[in-house]
């Protein structure tokens, strides 16, 4: 049996039935990483010994049958912006290359308590700034469907790891599409939960008012299982929501969507979408209608401005968040001796940050500085109010919105890296959910010239149960999500 190919749910059933052990499963995943990660480069750090120790502990738990959860014994990886005790956490940046946290992010503590097995930390665009994983300071991650193409970003390593079967699930982080866009490019399922649904404690912040941690998996069932394990209030994050976590698995077996109202934002389907993407998403809409859903056209009048709203707020908050990297308390320190503190700051940050980080923190400083604040940052925050109102109006009429995850399929490495504005425009369909206050599920909905096409199912705040149910009905009656890339060289 090729254990690394299992879904989380399948593996969980075999583990609880005693047909496989967590050590066998974890070794299969580690073998798979050794075989294909030299090509894919999804991982920054693999913690083999610690993973096997956690797997042995999970096996003891499985033998006694006490305190079992659906995640007990399941090997997984996480985006390298989530703090892990004793395992370096780099944000794929030179400035944190040797940083080893002394505490766990709350999501990591919860997965440890559930008995899941952490196999490693996944590559990303530096500090989450990018849409292709090419902005990693270490190396770009490759798309498992075609290693000449990008996996998307910024959670590119997390998406590629699931697609290439190097972990049964990943945790990604989505500030403006960073889970959904790479999920679409790599043909996996991913959820950006409502802001505040999942604790951000221990997440190295990009944009404190947008950042959302969520699962990336082979299917919606697995996404629901992981979301249930990580969601809920955390006293360590004052922005985490106190609303009770509903039973995400209830209603997941429903294959019909009678009475469900789905909105299609007309602005997203106006132009700019590749024909193969349009065909796949329109076919998915027809399928959802055949399941009984009512499809309506809706309008998000400020959608055209979402990129500007998002990037202005992002760069402003990021410039402030990244001020903490000063070469004094942790991280890179250049030069080590013989300079005053200003020179230490200048050189540490000049050497430690990559080009995209430098561009964005300068943009944010520009947007916040005297003379430009009103025209840029404040205007973006006012327009954000309008964008939220667009979503509120739409969700008054429909239960969920349907959109592609990206206007194109995965593009070739190098194609957009020299043109930051073109790279930002890759995010055109995913950015609005974060400033707009929505949650959003990405699912594979077809292929164009052999490359995956992703579809978003967006819901209102705390609408996770609804969009998971819609996604589950879609996947129960389609098989796009079961396809796996086959051409990976291994050696």
């Amino acid at each position, binding site marked *: 049996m090729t254990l690394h190919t299992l879904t989380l749910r399948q593996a969980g059933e075999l583990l609880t039935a005693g047909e496989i052990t967590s050590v066998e499963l974890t070794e299969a995943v580690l073998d798979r990483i050794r075989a294909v990660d030299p090509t894919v480069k999804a991982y920054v750090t693999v913690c083999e010994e610690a993973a096997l120790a956690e797997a042995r502990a999970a096996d003891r738990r499985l033998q006694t049958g006490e305190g079992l959860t659906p995640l007990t014994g399941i090997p997984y990886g996480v985006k390298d912006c989530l703090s892990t005790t004793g395992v370096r956490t780099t944000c794929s940046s030179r400035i944190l290359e040797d*940083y*080893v946290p*002394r*505490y766990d992010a709350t999501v990591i503590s919860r997965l440890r308590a559930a008995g899941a097995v952490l196999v490693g930390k996944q590559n990303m665009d530096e500090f989450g700034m990018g849409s292709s994983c090419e902005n990693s300071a270490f190396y770009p991650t490759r798309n498992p469907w075609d290693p000449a193409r990008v996996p998307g970003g910024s959670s590119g390593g997390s998406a590629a790891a699931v697609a290439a079967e190097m972990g049964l699930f990943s945790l990604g982080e989505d500030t403006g599409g960073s889970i959904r866009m790479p999920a679409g490019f790599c043909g996996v399922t991913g959820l950006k939960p409502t*802001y*505040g649904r999942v604790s951000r404690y221990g997440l190295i912040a990009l944009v404190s*008012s947008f950042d959302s941690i969520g699962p990336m998996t082979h299917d919606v069932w697995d996404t629901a299982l992981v979301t249930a394990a990580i969601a809920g209030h955390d*006293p360590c994050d*004052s*922005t985490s*929501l106190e609303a009770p976590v509903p039973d995400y698995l209830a209603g997941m077996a429903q294959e019909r969507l009678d009475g469900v109202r789905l909105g299609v934002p007309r602005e997203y389907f106006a132009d700019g979408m590749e024909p193969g993407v349009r065909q796949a998403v329109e076919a998915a809409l027809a399928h959802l209608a055949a399941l009984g859903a009512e499809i309506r056209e809706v309008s998000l009048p*400020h959608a055209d*401005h979402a*990129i*500007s*709203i998002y*990037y*202005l707020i992002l760069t402003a908050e990021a*410039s402030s968040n990244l001020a903490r990297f*000063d*070469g*004094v*308390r*942790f*991280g890179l*320190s250049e030069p*080590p001796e013989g*300079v*005053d*503190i200003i020179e*230490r700051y200048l*050189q540490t940050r*000049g*050497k430690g940050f990559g*080009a995209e980080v*430098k*561009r964005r*923190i*300068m*943009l944010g*400083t*520009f947007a916040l*500085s005297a003379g*430009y604040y*009103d*025209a*840029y940052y*404040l*205007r*973006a*925050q*006012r*327009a*954000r*109010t*309008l964008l*939220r109102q667009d979503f509120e109006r739409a969700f008054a009429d429909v239960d969920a919105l349907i959109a592609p995850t990206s206007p194109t399929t995965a593009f070739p490495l190098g194609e957009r890296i020299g043109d*930051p*504005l073109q790279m930002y425009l890759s995010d055109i369909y995913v950015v609005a959910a974060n*400033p707009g206050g929505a949650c959003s599920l990405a699912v594979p909905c077809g292929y164009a010239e052999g490359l995956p096409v992703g579809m978003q199912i967006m819901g209102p705040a705390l609408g996770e149960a609804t969009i998971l149910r819609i996604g589950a009905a879609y996947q129960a009656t389609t098989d796009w999500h079961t396809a796996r890339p086959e051409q990976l060289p291994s050696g």
Partner: protein
Amino acid sequence: MTETTQTIDQTLVRHMADLIRLALTDAEVELFTEQLGAVVGYFDRLAEVDVADVPPYRQPQMGRARLRADEAQPSMSREDFLANAPQQQDGFVRVPVVLDVPEEA
């Protein structure tokens, strides 16, 4: 709407880099001036949106202070806090001289 006609020049890029304590090479200044100019030119389209009577968005969670009870709880050890400090001395983080900074021109 003259406030949105601002273009990014090298002087402004150097000024921003100085504000955020970022050493840039001349080549970076040249490249970033061009790239940031294109991005800000795109952002300028936001001037088309009528925001005259629209309040800026505020995160509901951000405005609410939620304080926990004032009870002592375990925290990280000094050793753990210092573990990532590039330079330490006598159980403290050692920092470069801050009070003897030469005056800037």
